[in-house]
């Protein structure tokens, strides 16, 4: 569906996206995860064709985005971080406006309204001005406006940023609904729990993809094991571990501590002996499946360490 090749974009001296090549397959949710400033928005804008890359190209269904912007735009929906709703227009007027911009006739839009209202639950607010909607409702209206023309590809830039948890869950339900209709979705997010819901995830950092794959692949593909320990002296144990370069990236998880080790048995042995030296007794030691968040933090830290070396 999407094929990016050597995509590069610089703003002044800073490189927002550097030499990215990747594919997005038809009918999948592709998540772009990363901290603020990683270049997620720039990447989405490059795909949407509203920003011109310095180097490289994007093709959607074999059509070059930069050379045929209008051909692409008909079948694409891009929802920026702050969707540009017209706040002085009502919910319904916004939907009609965007529908007609995509060349959908008013009659056709009217027939699609029930569906749009069904998933967005905006029907009771159809007369309300968009500016008077809550944050979550605005995002859903934005999505509704994006979907009037039934695009085959949707690009969402942090759609749930600043949206309450309930609305977030609803939003993802909508996305899965679209997925079942064969729509391809590219979504950027800073929430790792959302990334976990994607078919494939790319971890973006400093303008590049650090790792790409399904959430499972990423978690297993690190070649490291996550050990979780519990002890009565959590504070002491944590500060003792932090001082050791090997375990310095210890993760606090409630009353438990988690560390990544290269090899399970050797790691556990060194961990035990270190804590023993500090007089800290362990209550339990388990192997754990890392969350995506655990893995990403480890991957990025590892990358920075290697860069520094």
């Amino acid at each position: 569906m999407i094929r990016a090749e050597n995509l590069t974009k610089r703003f002044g001296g800073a490189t927002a996206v550097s030499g990215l090549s990747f594919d997005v397959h038809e009918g999948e949710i592709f998540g772009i995860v990363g901290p603020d400033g990683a270049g997620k928005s720039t990447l989405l804008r490059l795909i949407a064709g509203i920003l011109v890359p310095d180097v490289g190209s994007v093709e959607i269904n074999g059509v070059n985005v930069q050379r045929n912007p209008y051909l692409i735009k008909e079948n694409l929906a891009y929802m920026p971080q702050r969707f540009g709703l017209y706040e002085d227009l009502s919910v319904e007027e916004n939907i009609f406006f965007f529908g007609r911009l995509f060349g959908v006739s008013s009659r056709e839009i009217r027939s699609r309204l029930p569906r749009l209202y069904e998933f967005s639950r905006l029907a009771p607010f159809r007369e309300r001005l968009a500016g008077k909607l809550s944050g979550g409702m605005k995002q859903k209206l934005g999505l509704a406006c994006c979907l009037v023309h039934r695009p085959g590809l949707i690009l969402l830039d942090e759609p749930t940023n600043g949206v309450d948890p309930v609305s977030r869950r609803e939003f993802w339900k909508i996305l899965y609904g679209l997925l079942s209709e064969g729509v391809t979705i590219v979504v950027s997010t800073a929430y790792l729990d959302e990334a976990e819901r994607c078919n494939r995830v790319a971890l973006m950092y400093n303008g590049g993809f650090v790792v790409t794959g399904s959430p499972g692949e990423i978690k297993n593909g690190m070649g490291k094991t996550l050990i979780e320990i519990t002890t009565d002296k959590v504070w002491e144990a944590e500060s003792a571990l932090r001082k050791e370069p090997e375990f310095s990236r210890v993760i606090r998880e409630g009353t438990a501590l988690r560390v990544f080790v290269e090899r399970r048995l050797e790691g556990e042995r060194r961990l035990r002996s270190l804590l023993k030296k500090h007089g800290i007794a362990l209550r339990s030691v388990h192997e754990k499946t890392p969350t995506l968040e655990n893995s990403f933090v480890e991957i990025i830290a590892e990358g920075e360490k290697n860069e520094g070396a």
Partner: protein
Amino acid sequence: MKALKSLVRIGAIAGKEWLQIRRDTRSLILSLIAPALLILLFGYALTVDVKNVGMAVYDQDRSTLSRRLLEEFSHTEYLRVKRHISGYREMDRLIDSEEIALAIVVPRGFERRFKAGKSVDLQLIVDGSDSTSATVAMGYVKAILANFNMDIKVSELKRIGIAETKMPVEVKSRVWYNPELLSKNFIVPGLIVVVLSIISALIASLTISREWERGTMETLITTPVRAFELVFGKLVPYLFIGLFDVVITVLLGYLVFNVPIKGSFVELYMLALLFLIGTTSLGIIISSATRAQVLSVQVAIMVTYLPSFMLSGFVFPIQNMPLVVQGITYLIPAKYLIVIIKGIALKGVGAALLWTQILFLAVFAFIVVIASVRKLSLTLPEN
């Protein structure tokens, strides 16, 4: 099919813009009420007619002849005899308090000297601090005195037996199109043009920058809308407002200031539309270039108000300007519309006689529309 979709998109933009204008009190006031206010305000303030100039008379002679002379000054609407005074001190006070702008002093022995066949002097004192009014008022006084002299000469000649005398050269002047030489007849058409150009550029200058500021532009440019569709879609509602303002301002000129409309109103309307296409597109260019509302407004006022006020021939006659500046005036569309409105309203000429002006306006509109489409880039800025 393609053209149809294009039309649908232009319609969508125009419809949306219309809704936004209707719901925005600020732009409604600016576009519908401000023009009328400006016309009324400037129409009353900007007059160079000197009328009802206050004057005082100091008659030291108190004779039949002096009374007959001073009587002449009360028969004109240009001067008004406010006081009969009896001393210079009083005159001083009246001039200082600006109650009067000039005073006439008839010296003692005025009639006696006249009857003795000697020439007599009158004293005219003028407040020169307002030099325009002073010069004009002095002209009035001199004209009245010349008439008075003439009357006396003729009756004198009659008395000694010469019945009919002829002046060597007599001027019979007739002023066409504005017989009373009312300044409002040329000020109001100029004013209409200035107000139209400011308002049309001003309201249009907000439109694209507002989209950038509110973040709606980023969404708009991901839709299949083309630059020309966006420009045309935005042009349509603002042209309607502009045309409404034409009606309002011309009507006010007619009803309040009695500026006649001798020619065809429809022709005037069509040509004003041509003018508005240019100025409104100019506003759109400014808007696309600045991307910020505050800046757009300032630029829009700068590029419309100053040129159409100073370089259009509205206030300052173009033939008195240095050659370089005269050349620049050809680039000011207001100049052409002023000629057109004066031609149609005052002279009643048809569009056929105004084709040079129409051509210039058309060229201006064409260039500006093309430029506004080109200036409107549908990609994000590089910073």
